[in-house]
């Protein structure tokens, strides 16, 4: 690294590249014919003629040939180019990036959980079934629903499952073809309309009112579409994606029920409610939860997610099979004999090892402490909102719940600085950016969700950085346009990635012929 003398000591982040690491090569480029990176189990059964056994065999297989140290070094170095909760503050709105406790990882690795097969006889897995039922029961009590299933494997998958249940419900009432509309607020996550479309529903948008809640009058009008007989469901996020609690929630549910529709709660924002208020009590018929948000299972770079859904009695006949339940005698059974079931939405029991982690987390808080999750999540978000009020005003002038939505519209108008520029500059200050441009109805949105696991010092450091960046926006906007300048790469051309599509490595011709 010839230019190691480059100044990296400046107080202003990004004044010179701080990270001097060599550009990573692909694992394929490290390949040398004949290397193997692990010792494969020895085979001690009598040899066979593979070609004879299989009919035909594969001629060429182009996979990397590297040593074990190559593997470890390659991926360890790549990990250094990645930001995680464990490397720093991750205030990504709507994503609930809270600390993922280490004890969760420890218990999920126990062979009695990690090395069991989903199709082994149920009498050989009593502890696994116990986990499933206990997580279901705890989530039922936390959300106020009558039944919980853990079969959905992600949040969007939970939404889809709820909509399937709603469709089955209307079908069972001979009401399915007529009810073809799902109402969704204009502030909703994109997964809501996409999930509705996957169930063949037409989507109709409901506007937000001046205070950030559902526009009740507009909802009433929408509910009267085609005389009200066409409404299948209303999908509502509560607290909304604006970080605001839907104060009229009971009235909204009543209005939808009045025309025969059902109400789904998008539970992405459950962290604001844990131990304080229960969506099942609000009037919702069903909801999805993200155990990877609210209940601390790791996001893993974008998955595994971990869904779960809660439902009221009216939808229970349609639950996916198998229904895992404890009977009166205390035995846990897998019930598949359910004539009205929608079937399976995933092949086995959902994200079991994530449910083990969630179980550990739920037990860590327990009855005594569960409410502290929502209390401190809400305190942290309001603290950030208050500290940043002078530089980035809140989109709605109210106390927020677990996240605050701020707007950088002023900077766009006055200095040509967009929300994205502020976010990219935050990377130079060592923070992961908040969510940008969502919800879609707030111009230059900056959505910050600190979560309850962050300390006041971390929040202060973050707020100081944002305030400093807003100052830079006025005095030295180029710093923001050019950001980030501390990472292995600068801002990337995402348009080029589409135009010159390159999604798989092409082995050099010489290598290909060598492997044949």
């Amino acid at each position: 690294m010839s230019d190691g003398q480059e100044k990296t000591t400046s107080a202003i982040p990004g004044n010179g590249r701080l990270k001097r690491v060599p550009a990573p090569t692909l694992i394929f480029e490290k390949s040398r014919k004949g290397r193997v990176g692990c010792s494969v189990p020895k085979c001690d059964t009598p040899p066979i003629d593979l070609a004879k056994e299989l009919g035909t065999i594969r001629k060429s297989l182009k996979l990397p040939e590297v040593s074990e140290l190559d593997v470890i070094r390659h991926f360890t170095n790549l990990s250094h180019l990645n930001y995680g909760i464990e490397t720093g503050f991750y205030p990504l709105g709507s994503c609930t990036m809270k600390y993922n406790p280490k004890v969760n990882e420890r218990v999920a690795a126990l062979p009695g959980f990690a090395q069991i097969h989903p199709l082994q006889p149920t009498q050989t897995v009593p502890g696994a079934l116990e986990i499933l039922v206990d997580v279901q029961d705890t989530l039922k009590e936390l959300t106020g629903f009558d039944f919980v299933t853990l079969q959905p494997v992600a949040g969007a998958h939970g939404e889809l499952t709820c909509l399937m249940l709603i469709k089955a419900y209307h079908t069972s009432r001979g009401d399915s073809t007529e009810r073809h509309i799902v109402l969704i607020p204009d502030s909703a996550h994109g997964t809501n309309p996409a999930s509705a479309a996957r169930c063949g529903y037409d989507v109709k948008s409901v506007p937000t009112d001046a205070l950030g809640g559902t526009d009740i009058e507009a909802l009433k009008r929408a509910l009267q579409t085609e005389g009200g007989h066409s409404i299948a469901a209303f999908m509502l996020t509560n607290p909304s994606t604006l970080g605001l609690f839907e104060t009229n929630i009971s009235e909204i549910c009543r209005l939808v029920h009045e025309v025969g529709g059902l109400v789904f709660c998008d539970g992405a924002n459950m962290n604001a409610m844990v131990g304080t208020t229960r969506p099942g009590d609000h009037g919702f018929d069903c909801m999805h939860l993200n155990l990877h948000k609210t209940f601390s299972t790791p996001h893993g770079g974008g998955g595994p997610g971990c869904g779960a859904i809660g439902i009221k009695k009216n939808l229970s006949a349609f639950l996916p099979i198998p229904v895992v339940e404890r009977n009166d005698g205390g035995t846990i059974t897998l019930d598949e004999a359910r004539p009205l079931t929608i079937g399976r939405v995933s092949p086995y029991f959902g994200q079991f090892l994530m449910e083990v982690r969630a179980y550990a987390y739920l037990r860590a808080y327990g009855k005594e402490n569960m409410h502290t999750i929502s209390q401190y999540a809400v305190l942290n978000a309001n603290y950030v909102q208050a500290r940043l009020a002078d530089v980035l005003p809140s989109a709605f002038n109210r106390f927020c719940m677990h996240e605050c939505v701020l707007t950088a519209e002023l900077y766009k108008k006055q200095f040509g600085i967009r929300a994205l520029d502020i976010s990219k500059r935050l990377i130079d200050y060592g923070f992961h950016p908040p969510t940008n441009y969502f919800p879609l109805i707030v111009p230059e949105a900056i959505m910050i969700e600190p979560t309850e696991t962050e300390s006041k010092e971390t929040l202060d450091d973050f707020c100081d950085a944002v305030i400093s960046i807003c100052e830079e926006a006025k005095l030295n906007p180029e710093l923001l346009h050019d950001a980030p300048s501390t990472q292995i790469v600068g801002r990337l051309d995402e348009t080029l990635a589409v135009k010159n599509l390159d999604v798989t490595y092409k082995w050099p011709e010489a290598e290909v012929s060598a492997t044949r």
Partner: protein
Amino acid sequence: MPYVPHTIEDRDEMLARVGVKSIDDLFHDVPKDLRIAPGSLDIEPCLDESRIVSTLSKLAATNKSAEDLKCFLGAGIYDRFIPSSVGAIISRGEFLTAYTPYQPEASQGFLQTIYEFQSMIAELYGMEVANASMYDGATSMAEAAIMAHSINGKSKVAVSEGVNPHYRQVLETYCWALGLEVVTIPCTNGLTQDYSSAGEDISSIIVGYPNFFGIIEDLNQAKKAAESSKSLLIVVADPVSCAVLPPPGEFGADVVVGEGQSLGVSMGFGGPLVGLFTCNEEHVRRLPGRIVGKTSEIHGDKSGFAMTLRTREQDIRREKATSNICTNEALMALANTVYLSALGKNGLTQVATSSVQNSRYAMKVLANAGGKVKFSSPMFCEFVLELPANATQVRHELIDHGILAGLPLGKYYSGMDNCLLVAVTEKKTKQDIDDFGVALAAVLGAN
């Protein structure tokens, strides 16, 4: 408050800054009658970390794991050896606790591993492009059928009876919700043969490779059937088998999907898994899920990776998106990538070859013990064993001998109450197989 760091002083300073007296005041918008009193939930009391470990260890110990039983159960989830490097890498906090790489500059590490993953999976299946992974093999298959529907507009999905029954159940659910029809093509002697039975107007044909019975389907025949019905050929392929079998792409498959669990992911009672999804470039814009592509800096000349073809996705296209899927299984895809790097070309070929070799020995041993190998077509490492007694009962009794024997098929296929689907991986030794034989002979002798 186990993971909440606030001191009382912190709390009070923060409340003062916000301008309220208590945290309760911040919940002003939640109607009073909808609030519950702190500590009023009817749930278990909290546990300290030591007791979390002991409680869960006790529960785990009541399960019989692959360390307690010799596992010959497969049927889509396999007990394969996982090199230590896999766990070491996927437990690194930089990967484990990251979110979706929406900020590519701060996520180059994960993005590169996904690009490598896509490259390896496309190569294994002999296809041009792969996405960044799906939930699991079953939902991958359902998404593939829906993708075919969006490509050709036809609404009938023809799926072979030889495709994993759990996958078919998921397919049925997805198709019902969207108003697509599913027809089943029957198997004869464990093979899909009568493609014409699916009738007219077919959107896609789905076959397993190898199929659920472990048999290597004739993909040439499947492709011909797809061509004559102008439908898309979707192949559900075991990625390990593709180390030694000609990959589905060589036969002209349009979409190849599968379960990536056997590539370095623990069985975990069936989750989390990882769905593999590949196609050729002509359909890349119809792909569900995330895709990572190579690109370069706007202002510089360094290359890097970013998510691409984003306009297919739900957060941009909403109800017009190719799928509602929002997560991939990035961490499990990383496990696949580390696994395939560690084993490489030679290691994976050896794993696949050993599995075939071990299964051939098991066929002989179990036939000598009183079972009968039901089908005779070429198989990979799984086979149907017909027993002179009820398979569920036999499996139950074999547990006491320390053997997890396989999957009784009576629940899935009529007339197969005495049939057991047996999987033999590279992890099994000659001794394990001999023990299975001895135990089976003992159980059958006693029956």
